[in-house]
């Protein structure tokens, strides 16, 4: 485990060189929040009115949290890197090192996501407080519980994106799959909570990755309950096992057929 923590630490040290690039990404984040703030203010006649179980403040906090999770992930860069590693043969140079490529990709990506996550959490909380004037009712313990759920959500997202990237072993370019994944996440997981979708879709969404990577931590933040926390963490752990298993199977199969010509 020490080596993976070192990979994580090295990536943090490396990512610190790009802090200003992250700050530029803040502009997009502020614009999105501003749009949704106005949208929900327009939809809600009364801020205390409940639509599908959420009042206006809860809806805005929901988007703030899901956007923090999505923006700090930096999934496109990860997918492109894995895809390029497979297509360009760079993956070969990781094979003969005493670590697992999946573990390496996971921990190095978590390193960069940590820096982005910290910065986006600070920004999100400041913006939320400025826009809404208050925080949801959370104590220290529940904040830590939400944080844990957010970390596990990022681990699952990272593993799912590694899986998409590794699809390059089968098809030449896996980036279009990432495009589909990101659009599905945006529409189904970031903007609206599961309760907003038609009743027939809700059970499907509850068993989909959206529940564990986006809805779960955001729901806990806006309406915390320990029962919900246990259910969400349970499914997150199950998803980590599934996603890691899928990545391992795909990687092992792909590496056997790896073609790396010349130098």
């Amino acid at each position, binding site marked *: 485990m*020490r*080596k993976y923590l070192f990979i994580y630490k090295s990536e943090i*040290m490396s990512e610190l060189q790009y802090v200003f690039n992250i700050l530029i990404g803040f502009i997009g984040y502020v614009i999105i929040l501003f749009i949704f703030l106005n949208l929900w203010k327009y939809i809600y006649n009364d801020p205390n009115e409940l639509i599908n179980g959420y009042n206006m403040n809860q809806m805005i906090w929901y988007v703030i949290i899901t956007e923090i999770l999505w923006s700090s992930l930096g999934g496109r860069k990860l997918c492109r890197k894995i895809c390029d590693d497979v297509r360009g043969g760079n993956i070969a*140079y990781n094979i*003969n090192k*005493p670590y697992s490529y999946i573990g390496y990709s996971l921990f190095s990506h978590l390193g960069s996501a940590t820096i982005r996550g910290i910065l986006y959490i600070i920004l999100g909380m400041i913006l939320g407080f400025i826009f809404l004037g208050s925080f949801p009712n959370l104590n220290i313990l529940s904040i830590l519980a939400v944080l844990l759920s957010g970390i596990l959500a990022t681990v699952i997202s990272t593993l799912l994106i590694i899986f998409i990237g590794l699809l390059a072993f089968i098809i030449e370019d896996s980036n279009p799959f990432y495009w589909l994944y990101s659009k599905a996440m945006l529409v189904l997981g970031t903007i609206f909570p599961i309760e907003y979708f038609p009743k027939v879709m809700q059970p499907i969404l509850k068993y989909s990755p959206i529940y564990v990577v986006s809805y779960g931590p955001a729901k806990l933040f806006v309406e915390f309950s320990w029962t919900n926390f246990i259910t969400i963490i349970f499914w997150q752990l199950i998803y980590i096992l599934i996603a890691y298993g899928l990545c391992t199977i795909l990687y092992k199969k792909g590496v056997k057929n790896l073609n790396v010509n010349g130098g």
Partner: protein
Amino acid sequence: MAIIEVKKLSKNFKVKVKEKGLKNSLKAIIKPKYKIVRAVKNISFEVEKGEMIAFIGPNGAGKSTTIKMLTGILYPNNGSIKVLGIDPQKERKKLAYEIGTVFGQKEQLWTHLTPYDNFKFFGAIYDIPESRVEKKIEELKMLFELDDFINTPVRNLSLGQRIRCEIVASLIHEPKILFLDEPTIGLDPVVKENIRTLIKRMNKEYKTTVFLTSHDVSDIEKLCKRVIIINNGQVVLDDTMENLKYHYLNKKIVDAKMKERVNLDDEDGITILKDKGYNLKIEVDIQKRSVADALKLLNPDNIIDINISNVPLEDIISDIYKKEGKE
């Protein structure tokens, strides 16, 4: 005792073939065509402990493919490999702790970190205790003369400095075998010479077995005692460096730019390859004439520019084929 044993090793690649034109490109989507490229064909050799062996051949000869199979990166189609008694494909991780690799064309260092942080990183991934890593870094820093730039981010280093750091990174875990795949590619002659000296020093100091690939004969001339030449995926020569020098590296090419025209004819030990008035290219058989002799014939005061090089590897290979009646 053989530290590397390779028996009847072969590797084929399945390569997509795309024919010319839009029509054929559309056809390729529905019915892709592939061809089989035989990169390595039935090669066998052994390497002894502490040896410094050169594995040379022109581009596309199968050098890198072989090194990748030896290090567990690629799976062979046929044949067997044992490196330190380990099958690289079956026990890749176990082998990783015992070997070091440097691929001249691929960076393994983190470019935003300093060499020092990189070495610490490599120490951690090879599970070496912190105190031992520090000691090793200190030792290798002296040996490879890294003092001036050990705390400069890798992205700001010159290519020569980076290659030195790449080699040090692959030595942190004290490997028994070091695989160097074209470590001097893209370097200027002075830096190349410097890297060669350092590799030699390292081999002397740690008795590490060195398996070096290159397509540059001069790269290995001063480094290795044994040489394997590979061409079209087959071993064409496995001999001592001494024999190679005696039989095939006995000629030097002198390329000179002259102030005045020189009238020179073929004579014993000297062959005129090209004579374009002021530009002259001659081949000197150093068993018969010294290069200094040849220069005297040209008159050193008359020389504006000069380049003395070995016979190209391709010519040596064709010479080997001719001598062995393979062609």
